[in-house]
């Protein structure tokens, strides 16, 4: 998995458009994979990779908007940029409602397209990172014992060790032990880091 070099999927039935846009996109150092057939794209593209999708609205066989709907339904997280030669307000509204990241009209200016692509790639990278951090945090949180989770919840709620001990009817010493353990398990170096990384998970499990 090459996360350093994002891959742009370009889907357009017109060969000249495909090759020209691919050339243009490659001038900013992005890799491009061009697809003539939307169905072949859906069947064959790498869903794990970092990158973005450039999709023409008007294609024979299947409309770009239905491709977009199917991608979203399948949980594809790459941002989708729609291209159209004859955009209407209604079409634009539908595209954004379906989850398109951007809606551009053909012929598209290089700066607009490249900026949209770079934004999309950046957003995708960020969302993947966030996702991964989230997953790691969940794994660590799962290692906590029931008592440690209780203590964590009260720490996040802003209680001192003494107050926690009183609330749980244990000695402040015991609370201190739990506290040290959970800091170690969650790899938190400060109270602020602990709260930022795990407050959401505490709220989730409290519900």
């Amino acid at each position: 998995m090459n996360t350093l070099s994002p891959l742009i999927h370009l889907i357009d039935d017109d060969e000249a458009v495909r090759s020209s846009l691919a050339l243009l996109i490659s001038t900013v150092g992005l890799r491009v994979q061009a697809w003539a057939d939307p169905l072949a794209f859906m069947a064959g593209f790498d869903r794990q990779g970092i990158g973005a999708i450039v999709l023409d609205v008007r294609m024979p066989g299947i409309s770009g908007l239905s491709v977009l709907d199917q991608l979203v339904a399948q949980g594809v997280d790459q941002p989708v940029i729609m291209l159209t030669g004859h955009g209407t307000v209604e079409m634009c509204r539908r595209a954004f409602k379906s989850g398109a990241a951007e809606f551009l009209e053909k012929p598209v200016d290089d700066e607009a397209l490249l900026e949209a692509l770079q934004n999309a790639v950046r957003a995708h990278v960020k969302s993947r990172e966030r996702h991964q951090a989230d997953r790691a945090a969940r794994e660590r949180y799962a290692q906590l014992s029931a008592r440690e989770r209780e203590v964590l919840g009260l720490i996040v709620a802003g209680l001192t060790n003494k107050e926690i001990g009183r609330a749980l009817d244990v000695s402040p010493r015991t609370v201190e032990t739990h506290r040290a353990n959970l800091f170690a398990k969650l790899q938190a170096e400060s109270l602020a880091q602990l709260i930022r990384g795990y407050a959401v998970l505490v709220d989730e499990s409290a519900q």
Partner: protein
Amino acid sequence: MHNAPMFDWARRYRLWIAAGLVASALGAAGLARLQLAQLRDAFETDARIAHRLLSQRVVQHDAVLATLALLQPQAESSAPEQRLTALYPQILGVQRRDREADWADARLAVAETLSRAVRRPALAGLDLAGARYQLVLAAEPTSFALQMDLRTTVPWSEWPMAPDTSPVRVTLEHDSQSFVVQPGRIGAGGWRFDFHKHLASGSQPFDVVAQRQVGWGELPWGRMAAWTLAVAGLLAGACVLLRQREERRRAEELLRLGQVARLNTLGELAAGMAHEVNQPLTALLASTQAAGRLLAEDPPDLDMARNAMTVAAQQARRAADVVGRLRRAVQRPDPAAQLQAVVLQDAVNNALYLLAPELQRRQVASQVDAPVTPVSVLAEPVALEQIIHNLLMNALQALEQVPAAERKLLITVAGDALHGTLSVADTGPGIAPDVLPRLFEPFFTTRTGGLGLGLNLCETLAGGMGGQLTAAHHTPRGAAFRLSLPLASA
């Protein structure tokens, strides 16, 4: 085989026909009843008058007898009673029976006995068929008898009917004898009026019988026919009016549909054209911009840039081909081939007629200034109709932007030696000075949602017919469009 369409016709209009038949029948029956009622009234009036006249006459006979009985003229002297026949033509003779004398006729004796019993004159020797009877009054010392003639009893000078020609039969009846006063005309069929009444005289209680036979021929056939015709005419008129309205509505609907269809076609065309042209333009733009970026690199990637420029040139050609193909596809057949003489006034009236609801809806007052003599121009009728329609619609849309009271549409038709001109002026907001030179450009529009093809199309159509379409400011306010076409006779 001929009755099939006839049957269809009858079925299509069966409601109208049924309504017509019912209305005709009701009207005719009403007219007939009215006529019968009038005839009955006339008959009864005549019969009553006849009864009264006859009653008065026979009462006179009683009076004459009473007078004789009272005066008791002497038989030996001048016998004045014998002069009565001269005074009363219906009295044929007077007989007398003096005390201890006898009647020559035994029937008179019987009548006298009766008269003495009832103390009023009594009938004797009744012969109604022969129009004769006698009237006897018992008195002291002398009883009198009158020999009567019925025919002269009838007061013909005052008689309400013409006895020879009247259709009314009048008879006097008594003891199953009868005297025909006038024969009338009694036939079979139709209606019969009857009148029975005894004469108002105790001594001569003859039954006055009047009869009137109204035959079918006496019904007011002329008026009934006229009524039926009037009903048929009215219904046919209403039917035609409704059908005209229906047809007009349909024509308007068709017109509207045509406009929508034309717009849809144009929309489709624009979408298709946008796609067909945008593809090569997209490739062209992307290639040239990529080439620019490649050349800006250090060192510049000359080979790639050259390739990109080749692609760009190819795509520019492709775009040009698409445009050429589109133009050939939508090219109209040469309108000059279908030129014919069209009267401008007719074309204007037709367009105004079709747009009448639109004018009404927008409360636009329209005024047409046209010479009485028809201005006949060479034009393709459909193209001309389309131009006028577009100009009028444009004007109406412009007028929507000003208050209803200021909405005026002025249409002028004129002709000079060579050209017929039609001018459509409105009092709308007018054309901005910077817009005026671009007015006829394709896809130029100031209306949101407008395609910008209407005036362009009009100008192209006008040019194709050898004419000209120009736009100008209208004083004091608004826009004026002027269409000029060659005269048909020029």
